[in-house]
């Protein structure tokens, strides 16, 4: 799906949400619906305006690339509104030359920021999204502490292809961080996870950590 179409759909979605929120409030008492309507009606107006822009944008032909803007479209380079501030300011030529030399084509920033192929970018976005979901499922099933060690281990070894040594120490470090900071120091009740709860267990790791803590605190 093209970006223009996606933008159009997103605009329609926002309009639909605004309309639904105003409609939903129709039966509430005055106190409860005052704010939803005070915000909802202007929001519908704005959403319609935005929808108009999105439709016009979707119907318009693709614009020609702007060479001047493209010249400084590097990481850290000024945005268009910042460029305008530079161009309006005094000694604009000196500042523009400095910006061009730092961020323009042929600069070190331009050389360092190689353009990634869109297919690779898409693949990596999907990969990371899947990993984030996997981390979340890990938390639901095994709780924060155990999953922090296991999913960190899985990600570093099989996702990032780190060495066994680095993977082991970082996974252990992540577990210890959760255990020492949140569980032991701040006493935040971390969930044991769906699996442990289904088996009627307190948590998987407490059978290992509790005796160690008892041993240390006794001494």
């Amino acid at each position, binding site marked *: 799906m093209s970006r223009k179409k996606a933008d159009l759909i997103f605009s329609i979605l926002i309009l639909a949400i605004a309309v639904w929120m105003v409609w939903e409030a129709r039966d509430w008492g005055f106190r409860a619906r005052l704010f939803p309507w005070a915000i909802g009606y202007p*929001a519908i107006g704005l959403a319609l305006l935005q929808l108009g822009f999105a439709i016009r944008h979707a119907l318009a032909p693709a614009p020609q690339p702007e060479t001047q803007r493209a010249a400084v479209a590097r990481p*850290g380079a000024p945005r268009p509104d910042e460029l305008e501030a530079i161009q309006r300011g*005094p000694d604009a030529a000196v500042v523009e030359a400095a910006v061009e*030399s730092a961020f323009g084509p042929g600069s*070190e920033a331009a050389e360092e920021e190689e353009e990634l192929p869109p297919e690779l970018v898409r693949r990596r976005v999907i990969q990371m999204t899947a990993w984030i979901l996997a981390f979340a499922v890990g938390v639901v099933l095994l709780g924060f502490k155990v999953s922090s060690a296991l999913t960190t281990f899985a990600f570093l070894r099989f996702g990032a292809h780190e060495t066994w040594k680095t993977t082991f120490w970082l996974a252990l470090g992540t577990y210890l961080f959760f255990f020492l900071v949140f569980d032991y120091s701040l006493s935040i009740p971390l969930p044991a996870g769906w699996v442990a709860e289904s088996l009627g267990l307190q948590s998987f790791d407490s059978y290992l950590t509790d005796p160690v803590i008892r041993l240390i605190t006794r001494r």
Partner: protein
Amino acid sequence: MFEASLNGLISVFTWPTFPLMMIGVLIGFIIGILPGISAPTTLALMLPFTFHMTPVEAFAFLLGMLSVSIMFGDVTSILFGVPGEPLAAAVVLDGHPMAKKGETGRALGAALMSSLVGAAIGAFILAASIPIIRPIVLAFASPEFFGLALLGIAFVAALSGGKMTKGVLMGAVGLMLSMIGLDPQSGTQRYTFGQLELWDGIGLIPVTVGMFGVGELVDLWVKQKSISERRLGKIGGLWQGCKDTFIYWGVTVRCSLLGTFLGIIPGLGGSVGQWVSYAHAVQSAEDKGGFGKGDVRGVLGPGAAMNAKEGGNLITTVAFGVPSSVSMAILLGAFLIQGLVPGPSMLTTRVELTLSFVWVIIVSHVISVALCFLLINQMVRITEIRSSLILPGIVFLVLFGGFSEKNSIFDMGITLVAGFAGMIMIHLDWPRPPLILGLVLGKLIENNLFISYSRYEFGFFTRPVLLVIIAIGIALVVAPLVQERLARRLGVKEKLVVAEEG
């Protein structure tokens, strides 16, 4: 005032405020130096840690982190020509050429010392402005605060980049999200779908952490590299840069003042300020030939201005609840988490806390400069860390951030939904900060609207100050549309003239 200021200073050095500020400084240093993670994201990720803190501790931790991250964003700008923070981009122009000329230490010394001077001047102006602003704030009532909060959202929408309509609309969506839950006036269930978890409303932290955290996680994975793949030589000569700050004291002080005043004006204090201050450094110099090739004044100007602007930013945030940058919008969330309401109380009963902000900014900068002198060669090794190594830790901070506000897995789900919505918004160029600010300010706006209506009915819209605020808000929304239309018309005319001449 003097006594309150002294108490504010003492409160910064008490246990456990000082160690917490030091932890904040350390985190600020790391994120400042790592380009993948921005200061607003880290602020959002650190919000859950402040639940157990008192207001002084929480702000020492958060503000210490924020001010130092801006300061250390300059380090990678100078060393590699890659800004560690978006606000450190202008330092690249002369800082990196200086490093290439073999003056790395001098450039770093100038950036750090000018940051310290700038931060101190900005903080001092924050303190000095309190007696001036207090009578103005005290003269405001609920209708004015209702208008100011809406104006704040319009300002953040304006500074978020992209189209103004999208920004304001996102602010409205944030306000709509704040309506979810039991209505504070009558107890009616609003948009809860009968879910018990939604009765308390949608938490600020799950949405903020998701919106800012998930997008940057994906971005880190897409880029997959560390900033520095080369070993750096030993860095020396920091003293010369420090001396330069005082040799060119005029540039440092003027840019600090410029940064502070731009920081007060919402929408300007952000990234535009660094370019304006760089332009000022160029304009005020007699010999302009060295700029862009490694002139130390090109480092001093933006370095001072960007750190001075925090003081200016805090003036409007603390006094009116109108944040002038994205970080301040998130910091405003921390106010609400701590049960603080920006406005009159922050300048009267809570003035010691406000003055402790001043000291946190100054003390954290002094400590950072001192640390830098001792450990700069070890510190820059952080730039060699691969992004994949820090990713799992950040994923867990994001997930835990969502969980921690109410200890609820349901909220962790909200974090994920907000995160993926945030990714779509980044892709389609819809700004996220106004949505967060709408969510932060929603309850406050509704409360002020209700009080205003109860007291004056709709007659409160005729109050002169509110009318001025509304006029500014409308101008802010309409001006870019008119400007764009005019520019298009002029553009068409110019093309016609060129065609005719051709």
